[in-house]
């Protein structure tokens, strides 16, 4: 058990595993956040839904996007990692089933899939938090504004993090991604109907 944990810790330090997980996390986190911004702005403008109905719609979407994130990456990484393993097996002239490398690739796949599902979960659930305060401290309008701002803030954090990682100006990188949230909200406002 402790050796399994040590392997997992070692794997979490592996730059390849971190890099792939990061991409899935950010990419799917982006999808989730922008989807939620679209849903909450659209629902508010529709005007017929209560706060808890909006929460339910977004929660349902979260299950869908998170499942898609986990499942697709699970299958993508299964294929990719099997192909990598086959390439090494050809050079080694032996099978690697049951070796540390085989287990390691399996564990890396689990981390990749988990991070891929975590991205949209965070991206979709955080912006709907204000809806729990509708009727207590916020109106539907302000809950929507707060939700969009949380979404924009999340997108900013994703961008700033990537900017920091690649030695770019994190503020500019964050603003570049954050503004997409405002654009999505804006497009929803000008949509006909």
């Amino acid at each position: 058990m402790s050796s399994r944990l040590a392997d997992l810790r070692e794997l979490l330090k592996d730059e390849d595993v971190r890099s792939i997980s990061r991409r899935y996390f950010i990419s799917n986190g982006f999808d989730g956040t922008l989807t939620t911004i679209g849903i909450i702005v659209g629902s508010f403008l529709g005007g017929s839904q209560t706060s808890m109905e909006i929460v339910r719609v977004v929660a349902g979407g979260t299950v869908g996007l998170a499942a898609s994130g986990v499942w697709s990456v699970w299958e993508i990484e299964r294929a990719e990692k099997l192909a990598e393993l086959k390439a090494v097996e050809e050079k080694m002239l032996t099978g690697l089933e049951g070796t540390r490398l085989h287990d390691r690739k399996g564990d890396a796949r689990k981390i990749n899939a988990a991070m891929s599902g975590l991205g949209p979960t965070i991206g979709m659930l955080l912006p709907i938090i204000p809806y729990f305060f509708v009727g207590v401290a916020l109106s539907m309008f302000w809950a929507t504004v707060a939700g969009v701002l949380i979404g924009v803030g999340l997108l900013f954090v994703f961008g700033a993090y990537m900017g920091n990682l690649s030695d770019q100006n994190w503020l500019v990188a964050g603003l570049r991604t954050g503004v997409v949230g405002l654009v999505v909200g804006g497009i929803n406002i000008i949509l006909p109907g």
Partner: protein
Amino acid sequence: MSSIRRLVIDLLKPNEIENVTFARTIADLDGVEGANVSLLESDKDVQNLKITIEGENIDSGVVTTAIEDLGGTVHSVDEVVCGDRMVEESSTHQD
């Protein structure tokens, strides 16, 4: 049966398993007091290593299993020293 005191193994292993992992795993085996891992050759996917293992009572079978568990393949056992004392290779006229 006399115990193995030194084992020099030539092996091939996947790049993804670090040389440090090989050295640590082998050095932690029972009967092994130390291990030296030297890189002989490297390409995109695999590396060729020479591992020198010393100890009071090295179990060659356990060493081979540990190498295979890590994904390595033993190419050859290049040197074995057995007995109560360490005997170095002696030079001959052919050398």
